[in-house]
């Protein structure tokens, strides 16, 4: 079963990329995810492994995953090593005026589980789709909020610089 959710974020791809490559922040924006931890000491990138779980119905499903594609500011894909079969992908595409089209895909299932497996995939799909949709909404809020703060901080810094004016050397640093 493959589910997908998309959203448009008012920030450049680099800002979104920063969030989705930081495993310590997944629990803050991924809905339904109860665990997302680094499985070994490797840095984020190709081959990094994480242990993730998502609550669907009466169980927390997931397992060990490995990053198999790491194309900066563009694509991040993973596949399962243990647990249910899954393949996920973040797909970031730059839009005009510094915005980003974000797509989150998740294909999942249990090979060999037959008709009951197929049925379980169908039954679980609305929940998974809902998790993905809410995750993207939370991601958008966080990224845009950070973007806003970053811009505000830049404006503040500019104001401080202009308020200090072309004063004698050392004036600005005295104020701070």
């Amino acid at each position, binding site marked *: 079963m493959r589910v997908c959710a998309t959203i448009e974020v008012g920030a450049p791809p680099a800002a979104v990329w920063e969030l989705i490559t930081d495993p310590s922040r997944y629990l803050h924006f991924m809905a339904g995810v109860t665990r997302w931890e680094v499985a070994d000491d490797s840095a984020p990138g190709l081959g990094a492994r994480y242990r993730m779980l998502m609550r669907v119905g*009466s169980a927390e499903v997931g397992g060990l995953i490995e990053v198999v594609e790491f194309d900066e500011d563009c694509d991040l894909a993973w596949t399962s090593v243990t647990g249910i079969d899954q393949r996920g992908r973040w797909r970031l595409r730059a839009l005009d005026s510094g915005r980003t089209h974000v797509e989150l895909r998740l294909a999942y299932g249990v090979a060999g589980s037959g008709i009951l497996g197929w*049925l379980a995939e169908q*039954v679980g799909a609305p929940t998974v789709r809902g998790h993905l949709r809410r995750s993207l909404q939370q991601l958008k809020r966080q990224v845009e909020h950070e973007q806003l703060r970053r811009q505000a901080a830049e404006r503040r810094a500019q104001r401080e610089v202009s308020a200090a004016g072309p004063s004698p050397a050392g004036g600005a640093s005295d104020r701070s």
Partner: protein
Amino acid sequence: MIDAVSATATSRNGHSTNPVGDGRLQRDERTVIQSLAGLPGRFARGLADQAMQRVPPADLDERDPDYIREALPGMWLLSSLWFRGEVRGLGNIPEEGPVLLVGNHSGGNLSPDTTVFTLAFSAYFGVERRFYQLAHNLVLSMPGLGFLRRFGTVAASPANAEKALRSGAAVLVYPGGDHEVHRPSWQGGRVDFAGRKGFLRLALEHDVPIVPVVSIGGQETALFLSRGESLSKLLGLDRMLRLKVLPISLALPWGVNVGDFLGHLPLPAKITIEALPPIRLRDEFGPEPDVDEAYDHVIRMMQETLDALAAERRLPVIG
């Protein structure tokens, strides 16, 4: 479904080591069985034969991770749609190493607790983590239930429990066993191990943590009326099958259900399970823990949790 008994119930060591002489025992059984007329008699005799002849050996290798993995979606459907299962506190279970999971047991012979918990445990830790459940010999002897061995169900005995723990596995035991699983529905909110403390000796002997696993809802899958202990004694089932109970309930599709040997269609009661923080007996009770004190502690912890879970429920079955 899984009806485990106290793992080290030394007074109930199984048929071959029954303190009564084998010859006398067989004569008694024959007399009792012959006194049963008609179909019930034949059925009881069949069960006795099954239990006596087909007690499966505890081969830990019979657990099949691939089989479990492929069965998980079906279990997930049953657990999510029918029982609306909710399992909390799995993070309390140590990530690795042997651990003794001690549960209260509910729901008759088709206990939904075990299905819901096995699914949750296997999904959470992965099927690669060794996980065994101790079950009554009779459950594993029942025709058609052989698949349970592939899930890691082994016959309850001190030797099997020891073997499983030594392999580094998580082992689930229900000390209350048949006594607790058939308690009347109105006692659904009570943890009742019938004073069986074998699990504590097991944990001490192997120095493994105990994780209490408390569940609620199983006793609402039918209207359990009585354990039928007197009836079981009268029919000699306690000696023949190690069954101290012959439960009587109102259950689908039978109406009045005596024995629950064929199981029943469980009502879709909401099952909530909570795993508590691990209890390391020697850390909490010193190098030589008092078994009675530890038993009281475990029961108290579980009862308090069960009370809290019961307080959350607004309506029977619906949850």
